[in-house]
């Protein structure tokens, strides 16, 4: 399998914008103007101010700004299913992973139907090309089952993940891999499920923010 075949040219590579400089210490969002590094962004302040969500996700590291160019690449990768594009990010992810400590690494899962449709999980593909030994500790809760819950239940507790291997989690630092950190909802839900199941700490790494 050829992973090294040049996937994007130098000038395209330059269109990837690394997140540098001042950023939110929790979610990697670039901070503008008067906030300085080490502070939390507005989003994270809100999450952490909410008793139901505070203290679950320790931190998220993102590599790139989700600019127009990266949007195109990610769309082609995820929705067109061009698996090969994952390898663009591997050297960057490798470099980042050197500084992250964890006991167990896992990926945000896709639903079974989605996986059968796309043929691969975009986060898992990254982990596989990185040579990481991931453990599937999360599954998506069936959306059909979810729709059977009362309306109130769904709104109050939009639970999406179910922990499978509970015995592996106690006292472990978990690293979760996903492709994009947009609102942070997905990762915070995963973190909450994992911590409730006994994980010591949950952090995440994503391609873009």
């Amino acid at each position, binding site marked *: 399998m050829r992973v090294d075949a040049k996937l994007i040219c130098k000038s395209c590579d330059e269109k990837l914008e690394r997140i540098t400089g001042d950023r939110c210490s929790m979610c990697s969002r670039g901070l503008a103007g008067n906030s300085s590094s080490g502070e939390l962004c507005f989003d994270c302040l809100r999450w952490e101010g909410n008793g139901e969500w505070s203290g679950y996700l320790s931190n998220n590291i993102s590599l790139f700004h989700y600019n127009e160019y990266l949007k195109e690449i990610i769309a082609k990768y995820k929705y067109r299913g061009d698996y090969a594009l994952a390898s663009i990010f591997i050297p960057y992810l490798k470099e980042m992973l050197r500084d992250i400590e964890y006991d167990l690494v896992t990926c945000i899962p896709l639903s079974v139907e989605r996986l059968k449709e796309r043929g*691969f999980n975009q986060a898992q593909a990254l982990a596989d090309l990185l040579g990481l030994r991931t453990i599937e500790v999360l599954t998506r809760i069936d959306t059909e089952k979810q729709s059977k819950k009362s309306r109130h239940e769904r709104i109050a507790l939009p639970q999406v993940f179910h922990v499978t291997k509970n015995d592996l989690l106690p006292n472990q630092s978990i690293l979760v891999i996903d492709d994009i950190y947009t609102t942070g909802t997905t990762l915070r839900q995963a973190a909450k499920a994992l911590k409730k199941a006994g994980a010591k700490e949950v952090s995440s790494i994503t391609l873009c923010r």
Partner: protein
Amino acid sequence: MKKKSISAPYSPELQNHLTGKHLLAFEIPFSKELLAEHLSNGYVSEACGVQSTNGSYHCVRCGNKEQTMFYTFPCKICDRDCTYCRSCIMMGRVSECAKLYRWTGPGIQFTIPDSVMSWSGTLSAGQQKASDRVVEAVKGKDEFLVWAVCGAGKTEILFPAIEAALLDGKRICLATPRTDVVLELSPRLKEAFPAIEVTTLYGGSAERHGFSPLTVSTTHQLFRFIEAFDVIIVDEVDAFPYSIDDSLHYAVDKSKKASASTIYLTATPSKRMQRLYRSGKLKAAIIPARYHRQPIPIPEMKWCGNWKKKLLQKKIPPAISRWVSERLEQKIPFLLFFPSIEVMEQGIPLFQMLSPNLKIVHSQHPERKERVMAIRNGDVPGLLTTTILERGITIERLEVAVIGAEHEVFSESALVQISGRVGRSFVHPLGTITFFHYGKSKAMIEAIDHIQRMNRAAWERGLLDA
């Protein structure tokens, strides 16, 4: 597969959707059960999208054989290592486990009204002669070349041939590599053939289409067809970007029936085509004159020194700035062609010192159409452009200059096309074309020779007014 049983019922809707097509399951908006039923009746057949022979992959949809354009991944659809084609991925992933479906059941019967064409324009003598030969050509199953100079009016000469083919019950496709050409041709064909369905296909067009007797499509979209057309007309055949030439030829070949005739239409046939024509292997009709019966202006070559170095030093070579200033003074609209976006972007601030209203255009430019409109309306005195504007635009009184004409992007055909922008109208059949260079290239000389030959041929055939 079971033997075809003629009497088995079939779904006319599926037939309509799938006839002549080569589609992935997600492109077929019918139930799995219906598809399975037709497969077992032999009305539909399926094939793996990516296949391998002796360890070498090929894509059945786009013909890709370049091994670096395949990739193998752990596929959760087939639960094994699965290879897919990266070349045509934007049309939906074709892999070893993804099937391509085609209709192999009864053919579609359609009727064409006797007066199918409402176009009643007249053709020039040169057009008429070529048109008669195309009418002949669509009856056979050979290849035929229409070599018509820029501004000859080549679309009109097709109308009688399309009419003849339709009346013969044939299915016709007019294909071109460029989306803007599709968008320009589609309404003209709909107007000329109002009684029939005309399907228009390009990247991003509404994707679900049934059967129609006449299709206008980008060559790229032809990947979704197989043995569909009785006549295929390929416009601007030489506008295939060189690197993807093979795959687009594959698309044309795959989309037509074995018995189909193929008509190529261009102002600048490739060397290969010119050779085939000269050796008598490819029949052709040549229209060497414009419909306005005036010769095509001949480009002049002008040495301008090391233009690349000058621009880096933030100076316009004097010969070029003189050329531009003259046109600004006389209010003659002009295009300046640059070899690359990079050189053009170095140039624009310098040229804007001559006139702040000058603008640039390139393939990635969002305001391309608006800027072309602006020069046409006189809101902008001139445009700096890459070869993107080499074809398909007509601007009254336009003059052009090529900066660094010896650069390799300016092939013979590019230079002929660029020159073909000038002198297109009845009122203004003349105009200047200047190739600014730092050492003449073979392509420059060949381009000038090409235009002179066409003018000579036009004189000899009496297609020009004295």
